[in-house]
């Protein structure tokens, strides 16, 4: 901090500290390296998303009516008649979506950096349970607007529950759906979504925070970490201010998403309405597996196999700390664990895509098999190649990006403006190219649009490559100007 103790802000901060005792907090200090990489704070961001969704949800609770006859109408009223109602509803939805997405990123990141090893086994298990509760909150919240679409999707979810092992299936079915009336179903989902699941999540969060405070941030896996990055900095003001920055950017993203792509209202469910069961995006991959041709052909048995496999995989991941006995934690020494993580991400992405494009029909067996076999061959062959040291393991992506400095430090204000303009153009042309290419493929915009989309995509990709390459040059990752440098006119 500059000119410590002189500025108004410093004096104000000191006054606050005298009153609140921030610097005497019991919250443990964090290592400097964690404040240079937001991936260490994904869990905290998920908590932020939870509270953001919660605050918006509490506002909506004042107007929502949990009854099949009036639920859809009350949501419609929130959107049209309540002050800022439409915005608040969208903030609630986007916060919930980001909570699920960030939780998944947090899970995958902790898997890749082996954050589940001793003494963090219980932290991993509590985190996994929190992830499952988060998914359940999404599942229960989806029904509340009483759409025909969500009613069908929940029906699919209840079918999954029915196929769980007895007596768990009967118990859970009664717990979520009662005796089968719509009034009971909606009321139970409402209570789960607004009271029980948030309460469970807060209890689990308290346990996880306690374990986090005991063990602190996970160790950096970087082998050449500078000494200054290992230094511990106090929670206040360092971690606090860093988190204020992250929180500002996060909330701004949620609000911007709410205005770029606001959610409307789907068709209301009334008895007799027939619709395709379409779960939300985060359940699409399970839906895809359930509606593949070979599962459908096997019928009841196929569905039971699917549920059993899903259950076993979930349990394997929950108890991963006791299964993974590999001693070395560094990713370059664990190519097959890394490959498995990458494979899971690819499969979830592919299955989600397949479910989306085949809405209303089943996925053909050959498509399902190919989408499994091709990524498996590519990913595990690459892992084998690294294992045998046929290729040198590359510098870890996050290590490389942690060192990146995209521009040189100038005090010239013109450089700020020019860099800002370049960034706007790059981001805008990348976004626009995706929109135009999407339009060319699915809306028949024609060949000129395709060429324009490809040109924009190429320009933005080249600019991104140029930025990374110039940073590489500056860092010394690239020894001298090569063909790429000459081509991009850098160096």
């Amino acid at each position, binding site marked *: *901090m*500059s*000119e410590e103790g*002189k*500025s*108004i*802000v410093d004096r104000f901060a000191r006054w606050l500290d005298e009153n609140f005792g921030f610097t005497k907090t019991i919250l443990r200090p964090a290592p400097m390296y964690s404040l240079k990489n937001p991936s260490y704070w994904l869990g905290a961001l998920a908590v932020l998303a939870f509270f953001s969704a919660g605050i918006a949800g509490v506002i909506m609770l004042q107007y929502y009516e949990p009854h099949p006859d009036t639920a859809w109408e009350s949501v419609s009223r929130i959107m*049209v*008649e309540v*002050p*800022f109602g*439409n*915005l608040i509803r969208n903030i609630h939805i986007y916060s919930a979506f980001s909570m699920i997405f960030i939780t998944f990123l947090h899970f995958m990141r902790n898997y890749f950096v082996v954050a589940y090893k001793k003494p963090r086994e219980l932290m991993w298990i509590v985190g996994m349970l929190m992830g499952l509760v988060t998914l359940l909150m999404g599942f229960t919240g989806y029904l509340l607007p009483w759409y025909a679409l969500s009613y069908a999707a929940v029906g699919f979810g209840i079918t999954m529950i029915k196929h769980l092992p007895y007596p768990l299936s009967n118990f859970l079915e009664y717990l979520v759906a009662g005796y089968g009336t719509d009034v009971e179903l909606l009321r139970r989902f409402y209570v789960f979504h607004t009271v029980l699941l948030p309460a469970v999540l807060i209890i689990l969060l308290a346990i996880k925070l306690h374990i986090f405070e005991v063990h602190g941030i996970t160790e950096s896996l970087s082998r050449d970490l500078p000494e200054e990055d290992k230094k511990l900095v106090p929670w206040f*003001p*360092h971690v606090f*201010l*860093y988190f*204020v*920055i992250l929180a*500002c*950017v996060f*909330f*701004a*993203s949620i*609000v*911007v998403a*709410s*205005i*770029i792509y606001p959610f409307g209202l789907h068709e209301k469910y009334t008895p007799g309405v027939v619709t395709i069961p379409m779960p939300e995006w985060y359940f699409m991959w399970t839906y895809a597996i359930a509606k593949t041709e070979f599962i459908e052909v096997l019928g009841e048995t196929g569905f039971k196999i699917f549920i059993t496999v899903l259950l076993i995989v979930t349990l394997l991941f929950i108890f991963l700390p006791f299964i993974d006995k590999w001693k070395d934690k560094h990713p370059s020494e664990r190519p097959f664990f890394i490959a498995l993580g990458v494979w899971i991400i690819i499969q979830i992405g592919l299955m989600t895509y397949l479910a989306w494009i085949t809405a209303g029909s089943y996925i053909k067996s050959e498509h399902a098999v190919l989408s499994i076999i091709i990524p498996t061959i590519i990913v595990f062959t690459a892992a084998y190649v690294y294992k045998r040291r046929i290729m040198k393991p590359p510098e870890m992506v996050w290590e490389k990006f942690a060192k990146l*400095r*995209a*521009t*040189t*430090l*100038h005090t010239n204000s013109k*450089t*700020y*403006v020019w*860099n*800002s*303009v370049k*960034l*706007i153009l790059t*981001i*805008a042309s990348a976004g626009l190219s995706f929109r135009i290419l999407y339009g060319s493929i699915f809306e028949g915009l024609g060949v000129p649009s395709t060429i324009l989309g490809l040109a924009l995509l190429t320009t933005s990709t080249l600019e991104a490559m140029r930025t990374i390459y110039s940073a590489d040059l500056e860092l010394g990752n690239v020894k001298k100007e090569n063909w790429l440098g000459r081509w991009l006119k850098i160096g």
Partner: protein
Amino acid sequence: MVNKIDLALALLIVVQLVLTIFVWTLNPIIVSHQVLAAGYIASTLIILAIIVYVYYRGEDYDQEWVAMGIAMVALILLLTYLKGGVV
């Protein structure tokens, strides 16, 4: 002694006050007003993030993050306009 960072922070508080008063005068039922309000709130949040970052890092701030923040504010305002955020 008031330094540049304090001045920037004071300016931000003034901007935030002006925007808050302006948002207060909007009609919260009209969708275009909601979009405008959301755009302004998001921009203010990004500006706040820039100021906290510069204040936190002092002389040692990275220019690219500040440039990215400025770009984001411009993009948000552009999107707000394109999405019909008008009075």
